[in-house]
């Protein structure tokens, strides 16, 4: 495969001349590689933000805010990470509620 073929393969789905004309395609494909590099790092941040939003919503249903919840978990040395907490909140609500209750009670102590 020539370099040009590789660039056109990477340029599939782009708009206008960027998918067909090599001079423009080369620029856009190089830019897309830069975005991919950057976004591999951003992906981790974006997922964490989403988990935090979901955990916030789930704990507020039980009367506790996200910051109080995480603080309580830290105090009790519960090392469950946010990814799993968000999963529990959606799929295992009773387990999640058990964690929230533990935090609610221990915070007052």
């Amino acid at each position: 495969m020539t370099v040009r073929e590789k660039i056109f393969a990477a340029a599939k789905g782009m708009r206008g001349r960027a998918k067909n004309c090599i001079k423009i395609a080369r620029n856009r494909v190089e830019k897309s590689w830069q975005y991919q590099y950057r976004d591999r790092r951003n992906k981790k941040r974006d997922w964490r933000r989403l988990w935090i939003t979901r955990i916030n919503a789930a704990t507020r249903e039980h009367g506790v805010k996200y910051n109080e919840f995480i603080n309580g978990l830290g105090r009790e040395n519960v090392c469950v990470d946010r990814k799993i907490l968000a999963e529990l909140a959606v799929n295992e609500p009773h387990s999640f509620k058990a964690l929230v209750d533990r935090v609610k009670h221990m915070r007052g102590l």
Partner: protein
Amino acid sequence: RLRLVVHSRVTPRAPRTPHTARVVLVVLVVCALAEMSNVIKNVPNLAGMRYRIVDASGEVLGRLASRVARALQGKDKPTYAPGAGSGDVIVVVNAADVALTGKKMTDKKYYRHTGYVGGLVERSARDMFERDPTWVFRKAVERMLPRNVHARETMRKLRVFPGREHTFDETKLVRMQLEPRVLVKAPDTRAPEGMMAFNPEAHARRVALVEKSEAARKTLGHRPRA
């Protein structure tokens, strides 16, 4: 020979023909009906979304708008996903009775610029309530949503009515839970079974603060209540 030419600032309008009057009337009626319908249109996916109703009378404007904006985006659901698809439809009634604290009725100003020189329009909240009772609440919610592509679709899920009447099916509406406004939330001082306080003295102080009995006040060293 002098001729007196009168320039009028407003060009005279063409006299309304009967046909134009009828068209205008039909358009007005259609607009009113569309406003009063219970159909939510042009919104990504309403399957499985709740229709929640909230009574705005007596609620503070911004605090209620914040709660509603959050619910419109779907951020109070553990299944939240970014985009306009996860929020519920919120129906707000009695929006004309939403409360503004202090002197905001006269002192809160809404500003617009028409683009022309000297065209800064400044209107007070009372003016806006008179012009359209639902405008103030809708504007508050609109300004609390993120300014992105989904803002318009999210606003379409909000229906605001000035009075108690609304056009939705009463049986399908779910009452929205608003947290009672507590300035200081008392901490939960109960210990689960078999567990002890980390710091017994600090725990005793916290319990005393919550209980506020006379004996408790003595332990805290507060002045006795008059």
